């Protein structure tokens, strides 16, 4: 049975290992944003032996490039972007102590294995629900790479941002499990129709 869990970063191993695929998560507190361009910059800084603009230990990273805020608003639409584009950077991010990622879409097997190794989770937010999700964001500021525009690293203060556990640190994958449950052949579909 899936449960609902409130998460408030910084997260400990204990916060993360209790999570199982299908659990609903509500995130409150400070999280950081990054898309591919910001990840690339972070990797370049690491390669050059320089300090990173954010300490990712225990943190949650939200893969999002928000639309600009209208005057009087905190942020524009802010739904998740597709996560596989970050896969090649994720091992390093987890090594730095990152505990959770919020995005949409499948992760590579290596990334799922790395989540097991470093005790981290991948959370899915509803892709395309950018206007809805933005209502959970109470404060937003750019903390690094402002020249990247929507791709800059933002520090967000969120309240009850909803997500669902897609990959837990036991190697589970909700996408695979969910699809298996509903996949059917033409024959089974026709039988199901007859039974109705």
């Amino acid at each position, binding site marked *: 049975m899936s449960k609902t869990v409130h998460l408030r970063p910084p997260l400990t191993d204990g916060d993360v290992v209790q999570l199982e695929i299908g659990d609903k998560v509500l995130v409150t507190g400070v999280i950081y944003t990054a898309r591919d*361009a910001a990840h690339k910059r972070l990797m370049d800084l690491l390669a050059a032996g320089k300090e990173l603009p954010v300490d990712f230990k225990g943190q949650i990273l939200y893969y*999002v*490039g*928000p*639309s*600009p*805020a*209208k005057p009087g*608003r905190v942020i*524009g*639409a*802010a*739904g998740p*972007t*597709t996560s*596989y584009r970050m896969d090649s950077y994720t091992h390093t991010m987890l090594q730095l102590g990152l505990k959770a990622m919020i995005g*949409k*879409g*499948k992760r590579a097997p290596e990334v799922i294995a790395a989540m097991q190794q470093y005790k981290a989770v991948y959370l*899915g937010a*509803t*892709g*395309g*629900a*950018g*206007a*809805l999700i*933005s*209502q959970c964001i109470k404060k937003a500021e750019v903390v690094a790479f402002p020249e*990247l*525009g*929507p*791709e800059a690293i933002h520090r967000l203060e969120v309240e009850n941002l909803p997500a*669902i556990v897609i990959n837990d640190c036991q190697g589970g994958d*909700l*996408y695979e*499990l*969910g*699809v*298996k*449950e*509903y*996949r*059917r*052949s*033409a024959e089974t*579909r026709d039988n199901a129709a007859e039974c109705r």
Partner: protein
Amino acid sequence: MRQIDAKEITRAVKEAAITANFDLGEDMLAAFKRGEKEEESPSGREVFRQLLENAKIAATERVPMCQDCGLAVIFVELGQDVHVTGGDFQQAIQEGVRQGYGEGFLRKSLCHPLTRANTGDNTPAVIHTEIVPGDHLKITIVPKGGGSENMSRVFMLKPAEGLPGIIDRVLATVREAGPNPCPPIIVGVGIGGTFERAGILAKKALLRHVGSVNPEPELAALEKQLLQGVNDLGIGPQGLGGRITALAVHVVMQPCHIASLPVAVNIQCHAARHKEVVL
């Protein structure tokens, strides 16, 4: 000869870019409502509920429904009896995109392919122009998100592969895309023409109203078969498993070379934005 001022074109494109991003079509809203009732998976029904709420917030608060406000794909039907005055036709459209994305607080999502430097104003839009009889100018703006565009494919099949080959590629494309293009999706299929024409046909197929029936019986039957096949994949809303992976499959077909069978599969996410204006 009817005269249309370039400034009028700019204004129309600007307004269409903004409203396309704020107001989802009635056909999509109706499809979400049906999904909320008919989806068997509880998490799938919750996704439909969220999408309806998201669309409502976007429309009432005048904010984009999705942060990816898309690359502006623009289909133009230019009547041959229209004379555009007071400026460059293509530039008038680009200027409309620039103003719309600026004034509407829409995300600028275009960049240099290699340096990845943002162009800053969401131009250049991709414009497809057709010259048609008459004295009207029809502009359809389709803000196309990257997530679903990335999952789209073009196949150059051997003619021997025929219909089974086409069905196989459509299903494979949707299966491989899985949760990535923000299902529930719409699948546009372009069959025939050439390599590039198939892609344009597939994109045009996305413009048809969701819930409408293809006027060609042969294609209507194929659409039905493809929709069932796609939904039997079990991907479901957001890929969490469910009965409704696609809300519609639309097929457009035209003759091709005797040696070829081009097939394009353009995937459209649930943020299926398009706005048409006729001048």
